[in-house]
Protein backbone atom coordinates (compact mmCIF):
# COMPACT_ATOMS: atom_id res chain seq x y z
CA UNK A 1 0.00 0.00 0.00
CA UNK A 2 2.83 2.41 0.89
CA UNK A 3 6.44 1.97 -0.07
CA UNK A 4 9.72 3.86 0.35
CA UNK A 5 12.24 2.90 -2.34
CA UNK A 6 15.90 3.70 -1.61
CA UNK A 7 14.90 6.99 0.06
CA UNK A 8 17.64 9.45 0.96
CA UNK A 9 16.95 12.69 2.86
CA UNK A 10 19.68 15.25 3.51
CA UNK A 11 18.99 18.45 5.41
CA UNK A 12 21.05 21.64 4.88
CA UNK A 13 22.78 20.02 1.94
CA UNK A 14 26.10 21.62 0.99
CA UNK A 15 26.41 23.57 4.24
CA UNK A 16 28.47 22.90 7.39
CA UNK A 17 25.16 21.85 9.02
CA UNK A 18 24.52 19.09 6.46
CA UNK A 19 22.68 16.19 8.09
CA UNK A 20 21.85 12.89 6.45
CA UNK A 21 18.51 12.01 8.01
CA UNK A 22 17.69 8.97 5.86
CA UNK A 23 20.31 6.89 4.03
CA UNK A 24 18.73 4.59 1.47
CA UNK A 25 15.63 3.42 3.30
CA UNK A 26 13.57 0.63 1.73
CA UNK A 27 10.29 -0.01 3.45
CA UNK A 28 7.15 -1.65 2.10
CA UNK A 29 3.95 -1.67 4.14
CA UNK A 30 1.33 -3.97 2.59
CA UNK A 31 -2.38 -3.15 2.62
CA UNK A 32 -4.02 -3.63 6.02
CA UNK A 33 -0.77 -3.87 7.98
CA UNK A 34 -0.26 -1.91 11.21
CA UNK A 35 3.43 -0.99 11.39
CA UNK A 36 5.09 0.59 14.41
CA UNK A 37 8.31 2.58 14.00
CA UNK A 38 10.80 3.00 16.82
CA UNK A 39 14.13 4.76 17.14
CA UNK A 40 16.13 7.17 19.25
CA UNK A 41 16.23 10.93 18.71
CA UNK A 42 17.54 11.75 15.26
CA UNK A 43 17.32 8.12 14.09
CA UNK A 44 15.08 9.02 11.16
CA UNK A 45 11.72 7.63 12.26
CA UNK A 46 9.84 10.93 12.14
CA UNK A 47 11.63 11.91 8.94
CA UNK A 48 10.43 8.69 7.32
CA UNK A 49 6.86 9.56 8.31
CA UNK A 50 7.35 13.10 6.99
CA UNK A 51 8.62 11.65 3.72
CA UNK A 52 5.44 9.59 3.43
CA UNK A 53 3.28 12.64 4.22
CA UNK A 54 5.23 14.85 1.80
CA UNK A 55 6.62 17.20 4.44
CA UNK A 56 10.27 16.23 3.99
CA UNK A 57 11.83 16.58 0.53
CA UNK A 58 13.48 13.44 -0.81
CA UNK A 59 17.05 13.84 -2.10
CA UNK A 60 16.91 10.48 -3.87
CA UNK A 61 14.43 7.63 -4.07
CA UNK A 62 10.71 7.18 -4.51
CA UNK A 63 7.54 7.16 -2.43
CA UNK A 64 4.78 4.90 -3.75
CA UNK A 65 1.22 4.95 -2.39
CA UNK A 66 -1.42 2.57 -3.73
CA UNK A 67 0.68 2.02 -6.85
CA UNK A 68 1.13 5.75 -7.60
CA UNK A 69 4.51 7.44 -7.47
CA UNK A 70 3.70 10.37 -5.14
CA UNK A 71 7.32 11.51 -4.59
CA UNK A 72 6.70 14.93 -6.15
CA UNK A 73 3.14 15.36 -4.95
CA UNK A 74 2.47 18.24 -2.53
CA UNK A 75 1.04 17.48 0.91
CA UNK A 76 -2.53 18.48 0.09
CA UNK A 77 -2.63 16.16 -2.92
CA UNK A 78 -1.22 13.19 -0.99
CA UNK A 79 -3.76 13.78 1.75
CA UNK A 80 -6.39 12.21 -0.48
CA UNK A 81 -4.67 8.89 0.27
CA UNK A 82 -2.82 9.57 3.50
CA UNK A 83 -4.30 10.96 6.68
CA UNK A 84 -2.29 12.01 9.68
CA UNK A 85 -2.64 12.42 13.43
CA UNK A 86 -0.09 14.88 14.80
CA UNK A 87 1.83 14.66 18.07
CA UNK A 88 0.37 17.95 19.29
CA UNK A 89 -3.43 17.68 19.74
CA UNK A 90 -3.70 21.35 18.73
CA UNK A 91 -2.19 20.57 15.33
CA UNK A 92 -4.71 17.99 14.20
CA UNK A 93 -7.79 20.09 14.71
CA UNK A 94 -8.72 23.68 13.97
CA UNK A 95 -9.64 25.44 17.19
CA UNK A 96 -11.44 28.32 15.48
CA UNK A 97 -13.90 25.93 13.84
CA UNK A 98 -16.66 23.99 15.58
CA UNK A 99 -16.42 20.22 16.04
CA UNK A 100 -18.90 19.85 13.21
CA UNK A 101 -16.95 22.14 10.88
CA UNK A 102 -13.79 20.16 11.65
CA UNK A 103 -15.61 17.01 10.60
CA UNK A 104 -16.84 18.78 7.47
CA UNK A 105 -13.24 19.65 6.67
CA UNK A 106 -12.14 16.04 7.19
CA UNK A 107 -15.11 14.80 5.16
CA UNK A 108 -13.91 16.89 2.24
CA UNK A 109 -10.44 15.34 2.33
CA UNK A 110 -11.51 12.50 0.06
CA UNK A 111 -14.76 13.97 -1.25
CA UNK A 112 -15.54 16.98 -3.45
CA UNK A 113 -15.58 20.36 -1.70
CA UNK A 114 -17.86 22.81 -3.37
CA UNK A 115 -19.95 25.87 -2.80
CA UNK A 116 -22.81 24.04 -1.14
CA UNK A 117 -23.22 24.29 2.60
CA UNK A 118 -20.16 22.75 4.26
CA UNK A 119 -22.12 21.24 7.14
CA UNK A 120 -24.84 18.93 5.88
CA UNK A 121 -27.24 16.63 7.74
CA UNK A 122 -25.19 13.69 6.45
CA UNK A 123 -22.02 15.09 8.04
CA UNK A 124 -23.86 16.00 11.25
CA UNK A 125 -25.23 12.46 11.60
CA UNK A 126 -21.87 10.94 10.72
CA UNK A 127 -19.97 13.09 13.25
CA UNK A 128 -22.53 12.37 16.00
CA UNK A 129 -22.41 8.62 15.40
CA UNK A 130 -18.61 8.49 15.52
CA UNK A 131 -18.29 10.78 18.54
CA UNK A 132 -20.89 8.76 20.43
CA UNK A 133 -18.46 5.81 20.50
CA UNK A 134 -15.99 7.87 22.54
CA UNK A 135 -18.45 8.17 25.41
CA UNK A 136 -17.30 11.74 26.10
CA UNK A 137 -20.59 13.42 25.29
CA UNK A 138 -19.01 15.32 22.40
CA UNK A 139 -21.91 14.32 20.14
CA UNK A 140 -23.96 16.82 22.16
CA UNK A 141 -21.40 19.60 21.65
CA UNK A 142 -21.16 19.56 17.86
CA UNK A 143 -21.41 23.34 17.58
CA UNK A 144 -18.77 24.02 20.23
CA UNK A 145 -15.45 25.41 19.02
CA UNK A 146 -12.74 22.72 19.15
CA UNK A 147 -10.58 25.18 21.11
CA UNK A 148 -12.87 24.51 24.08
CA UNK A 149 -11.91 20.82 24.24
CA UNK A 150 -9.15 19.30 26.38
CA UNK A 151 -5.99 17.87 24.80
CA UNK A 152 -7.25 14.31 25.05
CA UNK A 153 -10.64 15.19 23.60
CA UNK A 154 -8.98 17.06 20.75
CA UNK A 155 -6.69 14.13 19.97
CA UNK A 156 -9.68 11.77 19.94
CA UNK A 157 -11.49 14.11 17.54
CA UNK A 158 -8.31 14.36 15.48
CA UNK A 159 -8.13 10.56 15.23
CA UNK A 160 -11.76 10.32 14.16
CA UNK A 161 -11.21 13.07 11.61
CA UNK A 162 -8.14 11.30 10.20
CA UNK A 163 -10.22 8.17 9.67
CA UNK A 164 -13.14 9.99 8.06
CA UNK A 165 -13.80 9.31 4.39
CA UNK A 166 -11.98 6.95 2.09
CA UNK A 167 -8.67 6.87 4.00
CA UNK A 168 -6.11 4.39 2.68
CA UNK A 169 -3.12 4.97 4.96
CA UNK A 170 -3.17 6.35 8.50
CA UNK A 171 0.01 7.99 9.78
CA UNK A 172 0.28 8.33 13.56
CA UNK A 173 3.11 10.66 14.56
CA UNK A 174 3.82 9.99 18.26
CA UNK A 175 0.17 10.85 18.71
CA UNK A 176 0.02 9.87 22.38
CA UNK A 177 3.31 11.54 23.44
CA UNK A 178 1.74 14.83 24.56
CA UNK A 179 -1.00 13.23 26.65
CA UNK A 180 -1.14 12.06 30.26
CA UNK A 181 -0.64 8.26 30.66
CA UNK A 182 -4.31 7.42 31.14
CA UNK A 183 -5.48 9.51 28.20
CA UNK A 184 -2.56 8.24 26.10
CA UNK A 185 -3.62 4.67 26.75
CA UNK A 186 -7.25 5.33 25.84
CA UNK A 187 -6.22 7.09 22.61
CA UNK A 188 -3.92 4.17 21.76
CA UNK A 189 -6.71 1.64 22.36
CA UNK A 190 -9.03 3.76 20.23
CA UNK A 191 -6.41 3.85 17.46
CA UNK A 192 -6.05 0.06 17.54
CA UNK A 193 -9.79 -0.55 17.39
CA UNK A 194 -10.36 1.94 14.56
CA UNK A 195 -7.49 0.53 12.49
CA UNK A 196 -8.78 -3.01 13.04
CA UNK A 197 -12.44 -2.15 12.34
CA UNK A 198 -11.69 -0.18 9.18
CA UNK A 199 -8.92 -2.51 7.99
CA UNK A 200 -6.57 0.44 7.51
CA UNK A 201 -2.92 0.41 6.61
CA UNK A 202 -1.29 2.25 9.51
CA UNK A 203 2.18 3.51 10.38
CA UNK A 204 2.74 4.62 13.97
CA UNK A 205 5.91 6.37 15.10
CA UNK A 206 6.51 6.11 18.81
CA UNK A 207 9.23 6.77 21.35
CA UNK A 208 8.04 3.89 23.51
CA UNK A 209 9.57 0.49 22.77
CA UNK A 210 6.91 -1.25 24.83
CA UNK A 211 4.14 0.53 22.94
CA UNK A 212 5.77 -0.33 19.62
CA UNK A 213 5.93 -4.03 20.46
CA UNK A 214 2.40 -4.19 21.86
CA UNK A 215 0.74 -2.40 18.97
CA UNK A 216 0.17 -3.61 15.43
CA UNK A 217 1.77 -6.61 13.79
CA UNK A 218 5.18 -5.37 12.66
CA UNK A 219 7.92 -3.20 14.18
CA UNK A 220 10.87 -1.52 12.47
CA UNK A 221 13.68 0.24 14.25
CA UNK A 222 15.60 3.19 12.80
CA UNK A 223 19.15 4.08 13.72
CA UNK A 224 21.31 6.73 12.07
CA UNK A 225 18.97 7.05 9.11
CA UNK A 226 18.68 3.34 8.38
CA UNK A 227 16.35 0.50 9.29
CA UNK A 228 18.36 -1.76 11.58
CA UNK A 229 15.62 -4.06 12.72
CA UNK A 230 12.40 -5.31 11.12
CA UNK A 231 10.35 -7.79 13.16
CA UNK A 232 7.06 -9.40 12.36
CA UNK A 233 5.15 -12.63 12.99
CA UNK A 234 6.57 -15.20 15.39
CA UNK A 235 9.86 -13.31 15.74
CA UNK A 236 7.99 -10.33 17.19
CA UNK A 237 5.35 -12.19 19.20
CA UNK A 238 6.25 -12.22 22.87
CA UNK A 239 9.25 -9.98 22.33
CA UNK A 240 10.10 -7.75 25.29
CA UNK A 241 11.95 -4.43 25.40
CA UNK A 242 15.03 -6.23 26.81
CA UNK A 243 15.04 -8.60 23.83
CA UNK A 244 14.93 -5.66 21.46
CA UNK A 245 17.80 -3.93 23.24
CA UNK A 246 19.88 -7.12 23.17
CA UNK A 247 19.19 -7.55 19.48
CA UNK A 248 20.18 -3.94 18.85
CA UNK A 249 23.48 -4.45 20.69
CA UNK A 250 24.14 -7.65 18.82
CA UNK A 251 23.51 -6.07 15.42
CA UNK A 252 25.08 -2.64 16.00
CA UNK A 253 27.82 -3.53 18.45
CA UNK A 254 26.82 -0.73 20.78
CA UNK A 255 24.34 0.06 23.55
CA UNK A 256 21.28 2.10 22.70
CA UNK A 257 22.02 5.46 24.33
CA UNK A 258 18.65 7.18 24.55
CA UNK A 259 17.12 7.75 27.95
CA UNK A 260 13.63 8.35 26.64
CA UNK A 261 13.64 4.98 24.87
CA UNK A 262 15.12 3.07 27.77
CA UNK A 263 12.79 4.62 30.32
CA UNK A 264 9.64 4.05 28.31
Amino acid at each position, binding site marked *: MIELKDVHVTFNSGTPLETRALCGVDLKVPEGQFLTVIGSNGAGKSTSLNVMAGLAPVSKGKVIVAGDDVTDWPVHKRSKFLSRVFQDPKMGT*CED*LSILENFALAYGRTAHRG*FASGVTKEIRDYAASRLEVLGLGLENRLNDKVG*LLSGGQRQAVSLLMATTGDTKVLLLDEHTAALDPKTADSILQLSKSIVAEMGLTAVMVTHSMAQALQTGERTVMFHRGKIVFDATGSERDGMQVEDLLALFKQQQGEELADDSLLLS
Partner: protein
Amino acid sequence: MSLYEILGTLETGFIFALVALGAYLTFKIIDFPDLTVEGSFPLGAAVAATLIVVFEWNPILATLAATVVGFFAGYLTAYLNVQFKILHILAGILVAIGLYSINLRIMAGPNKPLLGVDTVFTYLEGFGVAGYIINPIFLGILVLIIKLVMDKLLSTGWGISMRAAGANPAMAEANSVNVGQMKLWGVGIANGLTALAGALFAQVFGAADAYMGIGVIIVGLASVIVGMSILPSTTIFLATLACIAGAILYRLAVAVSLNADFIGLQASDVQLVTAVLVAIALIAQQSGSSFFGKGKKGKKSD
Protein backbone atom coordinates in the same frame (compact mmCIF):
# COMPACT_ATOMS: atom_id res chain seq x y z
CA MET B 1 -23.95 66.93 14.27
CA SER B 2 -26.67 67.67 11.75
CA LEU B 3 -28.70 64.97 9.97
CA TYR B 4 -26.80 65.84 6.81
CA GLU B 5 -23.48 65.20 8.55
CA ILE B 6 -24.73 61.95 10.08
CA LEU B 7 -25.92 60.64 6.71
CA GLY B 8 -22.64 61.72 5.13
CA THR B 9 -20.77 59.80 7.81
CA LEU B 10 -22.96 56.74 7.17
CA GLU B 11 -22.26 57.02 3.44
CA THR B 12 -18.49 57.01 4.01
CA GLY B 13 -18.83 54.39 6.75
CA PHE B 14 -20.60 51.97 4.43
CA ILE B 15 -17.92 52.46 1.75
CA PHE B 16 -15.17 51.75 4.27
CA ALA B 17 -17.17 48.78 5.58
CA LEU B 18 -16.15 47.08 2.30
CA VAL B 19 -12.50 47.76 3.15
CA ALA B 20 -13.16 46.43 6.67
CA LEU B 21 -14.70 43.21 5.29
CA GLY B 22 -11.61 42.80 3.11
CA ALA B 23 -9.32 43.40 6.11
CA TYR B 24 -11.31 40.83 8.09
CA LEU B 25 -10.83 38.31 5.30
CA THR B 26 -7.07 38.82 5.07
CA PHE B 27 -6.05 39.55 8.66
CA LYS B 28 -8.54 37.37 10.53
CA ILE B 29 -9.59 34.58 8.17
CA ILE B 30 -6.49 33.68 6.15
CA ASP B 31 -3.91 35.30 8.47
CA PHE B 32 -2.29 37.32 5.69
CA PRO B 33 -1.31 40.86 6.73
CA ASP B 34 -2.02 42.55 3.42
CA LEU B 35 -0.85 46.08 2.62
CA THR B 36 -1.90 45.93 -1.05
CA VAL B 37 -5.09 47.79 -0.16
CA GLU B 38 -3.15 51.07 -0.02
CA GLY B 39 -2.77 50.62 -3.78
CA SER B 40 -5.92 48.72 -4.67
CA PHE B 41 -8.26 51.38 -3.17
CA PRO B 42 -7.01 54.14 -5.52
CA LEU B 43 -6.69 51.49 -8.28
CA GLY B 44 -10.43 50.84 -8.07
CA ALA B 45 -11.10 54.57 -8.14
CA ALA B 46 -8.70 55.16 -11.04
CA VAL B 47 -10.07 52.30 -13.16
CA ALA B 48 -13.72 53.26 -12.58
CA ALA B 49 -13.13 56.98 -13.14
CA THR B 50 -11.07 56.44 -16.30
CA LEU B 51 -13.53 53.97 -17.78
CA ILE B 52 -16.44 56.31 -17.07
CA VAL B 53 -14.81 59.57 -18.16
CA VAL B 54 -12.43 58.55 -20.94
CA PHE B 55 -14.01 55.40 -22.34
CA GLU B 56 -17.60 56.41 -21.51
CA TRP B 57 -18.40 53.05 -20.00
CA ASN B 58 -21.59 52.39 -18.16
CA PRO B 59 -20.75 53.30 -14.51
CA ILE B 60 -22.04 49.96 -13.20
CA LEU B 61 -19.81 48.05 -15.63
CA ALA B 62 -16.91 50.38 -14.83
CA THR B 63 -17.38 49.70 -11.09
CA LEU B 64 -17.50 45.95 -11.70
CA ALA B 65 -14.36 46.18 -13.86
CA ALA B 66 -12.61 48.10 -11.05
CA THR B 67 -13.56 45.29 -8.63
CA VAL B 68 -12.12 42.64 -10.95
CA VAL B 69 -8.89 44.61 -11.46
CA GLY B 70 -8.59 44.99 -7.66
CA PHE B 71 -9.00 41.23 -7.31
CA PHE B 72 -6.03 40.66 -9.60
CA ALA B 73 -3.90 43.17 -7.66
CA GLY B 74 -4.51 41.14 -4.50
CA TYR B 75 -3.99 37.90 -6.41
CA LEU B 76 -0.59 39.20 -7.54
CA THR B 77 0.45 39.95 -3.94
CA ALA B 78 -0.56 36.47 -2.79
CA TYR B 79 1.14 34.95 -5.84
CA LEU B 80 4.44 36.65 -4.93
CA ASN B 81 4.09 35.18 -1.43
CA VAL B 82 2.93 31.69 -2.40
CA GLN B 83 5.03 31.10 -5.51
CA PHE B 84 8.23 33.02 -4.69
CA LYS B 85 8.09 32.90 -0.87
CA ILE B 86 8.30 36.69 -0.57
CA LEU B 87 7.20 37.77 2.91
CA HIS B 88 3.49 38.67 2.80
CA ILE B 89 3.97 42.20 4.14
CA LEU B 90 6.78 42.89 1.67
CA ALA B 91 4.77 41.43 -1.22
CA GLY B 92 1.90 43.78 -0.32
CA ILE B 93 4.21 46.80 -0.14
CA LEU B 94 5.79 45.91 -3.51
CA VAL B 95 2.44 45.64 -5.25
CA ALA B 96 1.10 48.77 -3.51
CA ILE B 97 4.03 50.95 -4.60
CA GLY B 98 3.88 49.46 -8.08
CA LEU B 99 0.20 50.32 -8.23
CA TYR B 100 0.97 53.95 -7.40
CA SER B 101 2.74 54.33 -10.76
CA ILE B 102 0.12 52.22 -12.53
CA ASN B 103 -2.65 54.42 -11.14
CA LEU B 104 -0.87 57.52 -12.46
CA ARG B 105 -0.66 55.82 -15.86
CA ILE B 106 -4.32 54.78 -15.83
CA MET B 107 -5.49 58.30 -14.99
CA ALA B 108 -2.77 59.94 -17.14
CA GLY B 109 -2.12 62.20 -14.17
CA PRO B 110 -2.48 62.39 -10.39
CA ASN B 111 -6.28 62.55 -10.45
CA LYS B 112 -9.37 62.09 -12.61
CA PRO B 113 -12.39 64.29 -11.86
CA LEU B 114 -15.85 62.79 -12.38
CA LEU B 115 -17.65 66.02 -13.11
CA GLY B 116 -20.66 66.13 -15.39
CA VAL B 117 -20.71 62.38 -16.01
CA ASP B 118 -23.10 59.67 -14.90
CA THR B 119 -22.09 57.56 -11.91
CA VAL B 120 -23.79 54.61 -10.24
CA PHE B 121 -25.48 57.15 -7.99
CA THR B 122 -27.02 58.96 -10.97
CA TYR B 123 -29.44 56.03 -11.35
CA LEU B 124 -30.72 56.70 -7.82
CA GLU B 125 -31.97 60.15 -8.79
CA GLY B 126 -35.01 58.47 -10.39
CA PHE B 127 -36.37 57.69 -6.91
CA GLY B 128 -36.99 61.39 -6.31
CA VAL B 129 -35.14 61.40 -3.00
CA ALA B 130 -32.20 63.66 -2.22
CA GLY B 131 -28.80 62.10 -2.88
CA TYR B 132 -27.59 62.57 0.68
CA ILE B 133 -30.49 60.33 1.81
CA ILE B 134 -30.70 57.72 -0.95
CA ASN B 135 -26.92 57.24 -1.36
CA PRO B 136 -26.28 55.87 2.16
CA ILE B 137 -29.42 53.68 1.86
CA PHE B 138 -28.15 52.23 -1.43
CA LEU B 139 -24.65 51.70 -0.02
CA GLY B 140 -26.10 50.12 3.14
CA ILE B 141 -28.11 47.62 1.08
CA LEU B 142 -25.07 46.86 -1.12
CA VAL B 143 -22.83 46.27 1.91
CA LEU B 144 -25.51 44.08 3.54
CA ILE B 145 -25.81 41.94 0.39
CA ILE B 146 -22.02 41.56 0.16
CA LYS B 147 -21.85 40.70 3.89
CA LEU B 148 -24.51 37.99 3.50
CA VAL B 149 -22.81 36.54 0.42
CA MET B 150 -19.51 36.49 2.33
CA ASP B 151 -21.17 34.77 5.32
CA LYS B 152 -22.63 32.15 3.02
CA LEU B 153 -19.36 31.66 1.16
CA LEU B 154 -17.42 31.12 4.39
CA SER B 155 -19.88 28.47 5.53
CA THR B 156 -19.56 26.37 2.37
CA GLY B 157 -17.12 23.46 2.11
CA TRP B 158 -14.80 25.80 0.21
CA GLY B 159 -15.19 28.53 2.85
CA ILE B 160 -14.49 26.17 5.74
CA SER B 161 -11.31 25.14 3.90
CA MET B 162 -10.29 28.79 3.62
CA ARG B 163 -10.88 29.38 7.34
CA ALA B 164 -8.85 26.28 8.21
CA ALA B 165 -6.05 27.38 5.85
CA GLY B 166 -5.66 30.58 7.85
CA ALA B 167 -6.16 29.16 11.33
CA ASN B 168 -4.06 25.99 11.01
CA PRO B 169 -2.26 25.64 7.66
CA ALA B 170 -0.55 22.33 8.52
CA MET B 171 -3.83 20.74 9.53
CA ALA B 172 -5.56 22.20 6.47
CA GLU B 173 -2.92 20.72 4.15
CA ALA B 174 -3.31 17.37 5.92
CA ASN B 175 -6.98 17.58 5.00
CA SER B 176 -6.16 18.14 1.32
CA VAL B 177 -6.69 21.90 1.36
CA ASN B 178 -4.44 23.75 -1.08
CA VAL B 179 -3.40 26.52 1.35
CA GLY B 180 -1.57 28.53 -1.30
CA GLN B 181 -4.64 28.58 -3.53
CA MET B 182 -6.77 29.73 -0.59
CA LYS B 183 -4.39 32.65 -0.01
CA LEU B 184 -4.67 33.64 -3.68
CA TRP B 185 -8.45 33.68 -3.51
CA GLY B 186 -8.65 35.30 -0.08
CA VAL B 187 -6.28 38.18 -0.81
CA GLY B 188 -7.81 38.56 -4.26
CA ILE B 189 -11.38 38.85 -2.94
CA ALA B 190 -10.28 41.25 -0.18
CA ASN B 191 -8.65 43.57 -2.70
CA GLY B 192 -11.63 43.24 -5.02
CA LEU B 193 -13.79 44.57 -2.18
CA THR B 194 -11.28 47.35 -1.49
CA ALA B 195 -11.16 48.36 -5.15
CA LEU B 196 -14.97 48.38 -5.19
CA ALA B 197 -14.85 50.71 -2.18
CA GLY B 198 -12.37 52.93 -4.03
CA ALA B 199 -14.57 53.01 -7.15
CA LEU B 200 -17.64 53.98 -5.10
CA PHE B 201 -15.66 56.54 -3.07
CA ALA B 202 -14.51 58.27 -6.25
CA GLN B 203 -18.07 58.38 -7.59
CA VAL B 204 -19.46 59.75 -4.32
CA PHE B 205 -16.85 62.47 -3.94
CA GLY B 206 -16.46 63.26 -7.64
CA ALA B 207 -12.82 62.36 -8.26
CA ALA B 208 -10.20 59.63 -8.20
CA ASP B 209 -6.85 60.57 -6.74
CA ALA B 210 -3.52 58.75 -6.70
CA TYR B 211 -3.05 59.63 -3.01
CA MET B 212 -6.47 58.50 -1.77
CA GLY B 213 -5.10 55.13 -0.63
CA ILE B 214 -2.89 56.56 2.10
CA GLY B 215 -4.10 55.29 5.47
CA VAL B 216 -6.75 52.95 4.01
CA ILE B 217 -5.16 49.95 5.72
CA ILE B 218 -5.40 51.74 9.08
CA VAL B 219 -9.05 52.59 8.49
CA GLY B 220 -9.83 48.99 7.54
CA LEU B 221 -8.00 47.51 10.51
CA ALA B 222 -9.34 50.13 12.92
CA SER B 223 -12.87 49.29 11.78
CA VAL B 224 -12.33 45.57 12.39
CA ILE B 225 -10.75 46.19 15.80
CA VAL B 226 -13.37 48.72 16.91
CA GLY B 227 -16.22 46.50 15.65
CA MET B 228 -14.95 43.40 17.40
CA SER B 229 -14.42 45.37 20.59
CA ILE B 230 -18.03 46.41 20.79
CA LEU B 231 -19.77 43.34 19.41
CA PRO B 232 -19.21 39.65 20.14
CA SER B 233 -17.69 37.98 17.06
CA THR B 234 -18.15 34.31 17.90
CA THR B 235 -19.72 33.45 14.54
CA ILE B 236 -18.93 34.57 10.99
CA PHE B 237 -22.32 36.33 10.82
CA LEU B 238 -21.53 38.38 13.93
CA ALA B 239 -17.92 39.01 12.94
CA THR B 240 -18.82 40.49 9.54
CA LEU B 241 -21.59 42.50 11.21
CA ALA B 242 -19.00 43.78 13.69
CA CYS B 243 -16.78 44.88 10.77
CA ILE B 244 -19.60 46.94 9.26
CA ALA B 245 -20.58 48.40 12.63
CA GLY B 246 -16.92 49.12 13.33
CA ALA B 247 -16.48 51.01 10.05
CA ILE B 248 -19.54 53.16 10.74
CA LEU B 249 -18.67 53.78 14.38
CA TYR B 250 -15.11 54.60 13.45
CA ARG B 251 -16.27 57.23 10.97
CA LEU B 252 -18.83 58.49 13.46
CA ALA B 253 -16.27 58.74 16.26
CA VAL B 254 -13.86 60.61 14.01
CA ALA B 255 -16.63 62.98 12.85
CA VAL B 256 -17.87 63.61 16.39
CA SER B 257 -14.36 64.18 17.69
CA LEU B 258 -13.56 66.66 15.00
CA ASN B 259 -16.85 68.45 15.63
CA ALA B 260 -16.06 68.73 19.32
CA ASP B 261 -14.90 72.33 19.17
CA PHE B 262 -14.85 72.56 22.95
CA ILE B 263 -11.85 70.18 23.07
CA GLY B 264 -10.16 72.22 20.39
CA LEU B 265 -9.69 69.36 17.87
CA GLN B 266 -9.06 70.22 14.23
CA ALA B 267 -9.33 68.27 10.98
CA SER B 268 -5.58 67.71 11.06
CA ASP B 269 -6.02 65.78 14.33
CA VAL B 270 -7.83 62.91 12.56
CA GLN B 271 -4.85 60.55 12.73
CA LEU B 272 -4.42 61.22 16.47
CA VAL B 273 -8.12 60.51 17.03
CA THR B 274 -7.73 57.26 15.05
CA ALA B 275 -4.74 56.19 17.12
CA VAL B 276 -6.52 56.91 20.42
CA LEU B 277 -9.69 55.16 19.26
CA VAL B 278 -7.85 52.01 18.13
CA ALA B 279 -5.79 51.98 21.34
CA ILE B 280 -8.99 52.11 23.42
CA ALA B 281 -10.50 49.29 21.32
CA LEU B 282 -7.38 47.16 21.74
CA ILE B 283 -7.32 47.75 25.50
CA ALA B 284 -10.99 46.77 25.64
CA GLN B 285 -10.15 43.55 23.75
CA GLN B 286 -7.34 42.81 26.20
CA SER B 287 -9.85 42.91 29.03
CA GLY B 288 -11.54 40.01 27.24
CA SER B 289 -14.97 41.47 26.71
CA SER B 290 -16.84 43.34 24.06
CA PHE B 291 -18.91 46.37 24.96
CA PHE B 292 -22.20 44.59 24.35
CA GLY B 293 -21.29 41.36 26.12
CA LYS B 294 -18.73 38.62 26.04
CA GLY B 295 -20.66 36.45 23.61
CA LYS B 296 -21.20 32.74 24.02
CA LYS B 297 -17.66 31.47 24.24
CA GLY B 298 -18.37 28.44 26.39
CA LYS B 299 -16.28 26.71 29.01
CA LYS B 300 -13.03 24.97 28.20
CA SER B 301 -12.85 21.32 29.14
CA ASP B 302 -10.20 20.23 31.61
